[in-house]
């Protein structure tokens, strides 16, 4: 009974935390006070629910309790109350409209999380702090969980969170959604925070962290159904759907060309693919295009049978709206699949002087693969050794060593072309 209630509290708190916190910050104008009140409400729930049962509307119960705790705190702390009153008056001056009173919300908790997304991802905050605050305030992770997610010691993380919150207070970073004219400049910052959380999890093979990013993108899309938000959610779903296939039994990474496609998460692919048309309706952004590329991979029966013509065309679009050396590398790989390895190598040679690709492992490894496929074995061996030196992890190194060993067998037997 106690365990059931505790699990119910944990589940409700996880789902409701961002919403609860956002509503409290909106009401009281202070992140610290809001967090304190939210934590006290949860502690009260843990104490009462096992005895009295879980209330019919747990979110509203938590909100009412938290609000009472915050009001109690303000009664005790007049200096804080005065400071927040001034803040409130000034916030009204900025918005020309008073914040909605929660009593008018019909018992439910109004969803103010969109404001919190923009506060946590504010450009005046250091990039690292934006990830931390988003995980802490919107995903509802504890300090220890944020520390684990970003591989930082807990004490360091606690200091960082305190500092980030102090910065919001000192600079008075507002709790508001940017106006329509500002939105195009501010939204990419919010999306980048979510995508960074995702790649952090995906790169470290931490499914829980990637799951959090997908969940946050889903929340953001419900609150702000902009094309690029949809595109980002689709991209995450279509990428995350491959999670079971991208690591071998020995822990080594399995690249897209060698993945067992029967292990892809078809339900997640369907969810992601269904969003792509919406992400592409109108002027397209980088996340929408990347989602479209991921969808083509997802529906291809094999790597060779992928619609490479369309993928090259989409990389052309991506290179036009968001050019980067990494996009150029991916495009060169797609051209190699469409027109053969020789055509790909021409593009790779053109990229060889790009300083940002020096030591970029995927570039070096992909180029080595193409050299091996056209039978230029000595050059391929040199390229694989360069890729080996640039590999960032032991599994990556193991993969390259495997290719080098195959290459030696290949060149001994004197047969070129079996790689194609």
């Amino acid at each position, binding site marked *: 009974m106690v365990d059931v209630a505790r699990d119910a509290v944990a589940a409700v708190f996880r789902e409701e935390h961002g919403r609860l916190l956002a509503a409290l910050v909106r009401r009281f104008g202070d992140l610290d006070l809001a967090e304190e009140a939210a934590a006290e409400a949860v502690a009260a729930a843990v104490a009462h629910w096992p005895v009295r049962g879980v209330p019919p509307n747990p979110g509203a119960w938590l909100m009412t309790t938290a609000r009472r705790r915050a009001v109690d705190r303000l009664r005790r702390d007049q200096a804080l109350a*005065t*400071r927040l009153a*001034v803040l409130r008056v*000034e*916030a009204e*001056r*900025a918005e020309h409209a008073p914040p909605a009173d929660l009593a008018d919300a019909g018992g439910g908790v109004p969803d103010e999380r969109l404001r919190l997304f923009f506060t946590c991802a*504010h450009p*005046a905050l250091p990039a690292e702090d934006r990830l931390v605050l988003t995980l802490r305030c919107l995903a509802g992770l504890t300090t220890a969980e944020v520390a684990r997610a970003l591989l930082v010691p807990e004490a360091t993380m606690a200091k960082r969170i305190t500092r980030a919150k102090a910065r919001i207070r*000192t*600079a*008075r*970073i*507002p709790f*508001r959604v*940017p106006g329509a004219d500002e939105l195009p400049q501010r939204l990419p910052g919010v999306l980048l925070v979510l995508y960074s959380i995702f790649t952090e999890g995906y790169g470290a093979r931490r499914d829980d962290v990637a799951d959090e990013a997908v969940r946050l993108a889903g929340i953001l899309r419900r609150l702000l159904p902009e094309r690029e938000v949809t595109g980002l959610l689709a991209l995450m779903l279509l990428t995350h759907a491959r999670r079971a296939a991208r690591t071998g039994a020995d822990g080594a990474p399995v690249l897209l060309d060698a993945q067992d496609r029967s292990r892809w998460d078809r339900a997640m692919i369907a969810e992601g693919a269904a969003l792509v048309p919406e992400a592409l309706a109108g002027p397209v952004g980088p996340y929408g295009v990347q989602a479209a590329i991921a969808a083509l991979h997802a529906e291809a029966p094999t790597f060779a049978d992928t619609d490479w013509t369309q993928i090259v065309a989409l990389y052309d679009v991506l290179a036009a709206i968001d050019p980067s050396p990494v996009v150029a590398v991916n495009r060169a790989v797609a051209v190699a699949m469409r027109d053969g390895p020789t055509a790909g190598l021409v593009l790779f040679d053109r990229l060889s002087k790009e300083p940002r690709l020096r030591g970029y492992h995927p570039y070096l490894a992909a180029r080595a693969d193409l050299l091996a496929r056209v039978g230029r074995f000595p050059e391929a061996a040199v390229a694989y050794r360069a890729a080996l030196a640039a590999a960032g992890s032991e599994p990556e190194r193991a993969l390259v060593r495997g290719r080098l060993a195959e290459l030696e067998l290949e060149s001994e037997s004197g047969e070129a072309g079996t790689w194609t």
Partner: protein
Amino acid sequence: MKYMLLINAGAVDVEGGAVGCAPEDWMAYDKQVHDAGVFVSGESMADLVTAAVVRVADDGRRTVTDGPFAEAREVLGGFYVIDVPDLDVALEWAARCPGARGGGSVVVRPIADFGA
């Protein structure tokens, strides 16, 4: 909430003025800041190159040198202190400032309030 807008010129012309700044743009901006009721104070430097730097060592010895402009890419041209509700409003005023264009920049810093 008070913020200081530190206006840095991106390049200095031979007369020591900021490159590419039209006086009428500044007059229009200054009028906007006053009309909106957010102006607290503000000054502009006489020029961008005349400065002296004073340092006092631990032993009390004083050194005075001319401005450290040789290595600085941007030089302070002036400042405003404005009183606005929050950082986003301050950033909006900074973006409207002529000094933010043409290779210049405006640094926005919150001012300490010891009264509250």
